[in-house]
């Protein structure tokens, strides 16, 4: 039950894009067409879950305990390590996909390099560390991965809604200076307003 609440919280309350402003560049860039939005959404869920799992593992098992990186002043390396791990993880996944499942790569692959420079992935990795540090290692790992998956889900939900709305807005008589990105921001603000209804979720 407590995990269900975590998922609802991650998808609606603190939605990655609409409440925490993470991953905005691809969110605005890719939501022009629903087909590319679906591809991007799946890629983001896939990578964020994987990244959460791996970074949490690397941080607690590899860096924090044995090497003491996490301890007081010596956590200076975690940004660098995280970003390198994520970059190589994405590179690795991209190559595996390109070879083993070309169809999936064709639909998904073109977004994978995009994710390396995506604030959302590093963001979720960083948040996982600070948020799930307290409980036991196993519970923390499960929580982090679930949070990664739920945040990815929230990102994809917002992305799909946004792409369908923007396709409908292509037929709307939006005033000239507001066409394209400005109206996308207004839609994002309305969606954020709607999701604020869930704030204060117990």
């Amino acid at each position: 039950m407590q995990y269900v609440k975590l998922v609802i919280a991650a998808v609606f309350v603190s939605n990655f894009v609409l409440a925490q402003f993470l991953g905005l560049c691809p969110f605005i860039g890719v939501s022009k067409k629903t087909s590319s939005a679906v591809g991007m959404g799946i890629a983001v869920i896939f990578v964020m879950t994987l990244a959460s799992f791996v970074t949490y593992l690397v941080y607690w098992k590899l860096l924090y305990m044995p090497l003491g990186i996490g301890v007081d002043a010596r956590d200076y390396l975690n940004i660098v390590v995280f970003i390198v791990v994520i970059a190589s993880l994405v590179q690795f996944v991209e190559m595996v996909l390109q070879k083993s499942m070309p169809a999936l790569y064709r639909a998904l692959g073109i977004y994978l390099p995009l994710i390396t420079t995506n604030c959302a992935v590093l963001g979720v990795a960083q948040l996982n560390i600070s948020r799930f540090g307290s409980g036991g290692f196993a519970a923390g790992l499960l929580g982090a991965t679930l949070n990664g998956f739920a945040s990815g889900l929230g990102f994809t939900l917002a992305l799909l809604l946004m792409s369908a709305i923007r396709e409908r807005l292509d037929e709307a008589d939006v005033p000239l200076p507001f066409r394209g990105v400005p109206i996308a921001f207004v839609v994002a603000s309305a969606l954020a307003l709607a999701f604020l209804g869930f704030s204060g979720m117990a």
Partner: protein
Amino acid sequence: MHLLKEITKGIIRENPVLVLLIGLCPTLAVTSRITDAVGMSIAAAFVLICSNLIISMIKDVIPKKIRIPCYIVVIATFVTLVQMFMAAYFPDLNDSLGIFIPLIVVNCIILGRAEAFAGRNGILASAADGLGMSMGFAFALLVISFVREVLGSWSIGGIPVSDGGFAPMAVMIMAPGAFVVVALILGLMNALRDRKRTCAVAGALNREITLYAASKPEALKLARADNTDPG
């Protein structure tokens, strides 16, 4: 001379946030208070200029294939420097910016400029471009945070402006407010640019239009009727 042009380019014509639409995540996140905006733009400026410098120096050394990971590592080291400096001297700013300091690493402006400009131009030009871009970024952040803070909490930089008769619109500090303010500013920018272009085009053309109109068969016939033969 060409360096100055490089710098001014970044502020208005190719403003990273308002024109190229990159680096949006921090723009919306940290502009609920002017102090945060100032802190973030200085941090970003430091990282951008230094990383541009370093990258333009080592760009020939790095093999083509893995240039992005190398750029990332360079930027990450500078970000770590900033984070430690911030934690030491400005702990409250560090808390309010929170996760967005490490996120400077993947900030599209810095990596974008590193790849598109620093990786291909000289050291001095890259530094100038870095300066220009960060000034543009700072300009955008300041404008947005000024609007959001005044409307959202009736204060500028923390000092309350006036009781204003009715309570401040707290929504401006929240997420929807951020999106709306950015949308309106972008719209305004587009409107100004379009109007400037259409005035320029119309101005140059109207004398030619009257001449072309006068050469139409109808106009010639009317002119011939009251025998002012245009020849």
